[in-house]
């Protein structure tokens, strides 16, 4: 097998594995509660989510989420209920389609701008040219000056 075929086969195998792994799964109720809780900030902790915090407040909030899930509310309804109670502050990541969603665009913009700059700086390097005698002399002089002890 040529190297190229082996590479294509390897990439396809990874891709197939990813497709299987990414296949949508039925979400259990606990998983759904956990997912909603992970997006909400525990109000009495230092930056922990409701899912992560072992505090009583977080446990009560998880219980409320569980109750709402059992009542058949949608994710958005549950989130909005907490948002009304605590303000936008309770959401640990701002919605993308929001005035504050700009925070999502920055990483993307930096990567794209960076790639554009890099692309403009890549190309066939010109053959290495030997330094001119003047440059060599300058470097020697500077090196000699520095190597002298003060």
């Amino acid at each position, binding site marked *: 097998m040529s190297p190229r075929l082996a590479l294509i086969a390897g990439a396809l195998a990874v891709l*197939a*594995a990813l497709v299987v792994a990414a296949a949508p799964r039925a979400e259990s109720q606990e998983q759904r509660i956990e997912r909603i809780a992970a997006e909400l900030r525990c109000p009495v902790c230092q930056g922990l989510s409701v899912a992560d915090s072992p505090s009583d407040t977080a446990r009560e909030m998880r219980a409320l989420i569980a109750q709402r899930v059992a009542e058949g509310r949608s994710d958005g309804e549950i989130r909005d209920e907490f948002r009304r109670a605590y303000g936008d502050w309770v959401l640990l990541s701002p919605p993308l389609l929001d005035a504050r969603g700009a925070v999502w665009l920055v990483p993307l913009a930096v990567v794209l701008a960076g790639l554009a700059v890099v692309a403009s*700086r890549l190309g066939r390097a010109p053959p290495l040219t030997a330094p001119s005698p003047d440059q060599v002399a300058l470097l020697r002089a500077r090196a000699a000056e520095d190597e002298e002890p003060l």
Partner: protein
Amino acid sequence: MTPSWADLGSGALRAALPLALWGLAAAAYAAQRREGRALASARWTAVAALALVVTASLSMVAALLSHDFSVRYVALNNALETPGYFSAISLWAALEGSILLWTTVLAGAVTYVAWRGTRELPRLATTALAILFAMLAFFLALMVTPAADPFVRIDPAPLNGRGPNPLLQDHWLMGLHPPLLYLGYVLFSIPFAYALASLILGEAGDRWIVATRRSALVAWALLGVGIVAGAWWSYAVLGWGGYWAWDPVENAAVMPWLAATAYVHSVMVEEKRRMLRTWNLSLVIGAFALTILGTFLTRSGVVNSVHSFTQSAIGPLLLGYLAAILVFSVGLLLWRASRLADSGPVGAPLSREAIFLFQNVLFVAATLTVLLGTLYPLLVEAVSGDQVSIGSPYFDRVAVPLGLALLFLMGIGPQLPWHGASRATLERQLVTPALAAAGAAVLSVALGVRGAWAVLAYALAAFVVATVVQELVRGVRARRALHGEPPGAAFVNLFRRSGRRYGGYVVHVGIAVIAVAIAASQAQSVQAEATLAPGGSMEVAGRTIAFEGLRDVIEPQRRQVVADLRITDSSGEAPLTAALRYYPNATAAIGSPGIRSSAGDDVYVILAAYDGRSRAWATFQVRVLPLVSWLWVGGAIVGLGAVLAALPSARRRERPLAVTVPASSAAGAK
């Protein structure tokens, strides 16, 4: 009043400040006038300043150990009941002591450059020395003003102190994690000072990079290992079953590390290709500025964090220092810009240079993301008055794709030679790593792993490790062919002669191990909660956790409610305790999780609540975190690799032949 340790420390700091200013003047004069006697004076001044600052630090430790509550810092951070170990390490339990530790390390860096650096490159290092003396003077000046004076007295002295923050007297790792971070932070001053010195002297070359290669690497490694130690502390002490919360202070430590990771790679482009001069200077300035920003964020109280233990008037001073550093550095950079411009393209698209550039883009994007995410709530509040949060869901969503892209580059980069390779060569090199990645992906799916990110992480980690193994095999073969060495000796000699390259590969393996540990512990964790009566038990992921009962433990410095548990799994039965600890100076209980670690997974038990009256029940949260202990192992591998890369190489004693033929191209040409 009889003289005390605090008087000694206070006097030492006040004596050190004029010395630092004298050192600054002497070093600047020595560099400008090429004056040997002034340099000698600066050298001895550095030693004297170091001795004084060390005296001050040890005086503080002595004041803490002797519980001298007439010192405000001791009264606020120590109590008669505090155990000796935690008394001693309370040197860095709060702001003033941390600045004292910082200054001590900085004085060490000044002395190192004064004696070692100036021998190698007299003019450049002497200029850098003047800059380092200026920084030392700033921190000493902070400590003789009320803003951060560690030795301020209170009269009358209280009979007992408040005791250290409970979170800081709960785990031995507190003795390790903050000093590692401070060492990392402060050692970045050395490359930064050399970079500025190079700009001041108008050098166009990379001598500042070569001269500070080792200190940059050591600073990078200490910061990295310090971050992992902090994650471990968070895991073992904060009791929430995680190790990384994207807390502002964690972010403050990780930002300079990200920038420095870009730096330690991109300097190689300058050394090999004489390119990216402005960029490398910008990176080292950025990394250094981020260390100061981190200190400002954590110590000024502008952001809420588990780590901002104190708030003080030091914030504006640090902000002014940061602004001065940025204005001075960027001004120098602009002044010298014309001497630093690159000519021509940096490299071919399929070359190691190109991979380093892409790597730099991703690391800079990651740094800016963390910076923006940390500051965004402040910015929004300043503009609109609204309070918003940026937490793990945001950082995870951005960091995971960036991290996986970086893993991919980590596998490709070492396969590509400088100046570029043909596509056919690259394809040949990538076959084994690609097949390893495919194997890992298929195997993990077959073992039941679900979630595309996790599978991709395992595949890319296998890709990276296979790359490194392939490079090692090639290197050993090349040495055997060239020098006829037996395999073992050839392997050892690879590290002895080209420690930088192969040490770097060991670091890559450590990062791959960390990536696997993060993916497994995040994506495959299982959790459960149950309220049990003594004698009851719960089942989690094939283990039985039996609750035997609660008991009260009274210690001098705290009270504990300890839950005795018994955990049964396939390997047998073992006792485990989870506790809630009550400290007199804390309103909330501090959880002390019970952790049963093994190579396969950790069982993490949190005592969440209990019946306060009759001890009739307790609620436990249990998390099973696969492979999480490999995170600490990965951190150790990263540290080991950095040591191998920083060790002086033995290549000078060897014929130059092996040096000029890089292992990969030697093997690829066959």
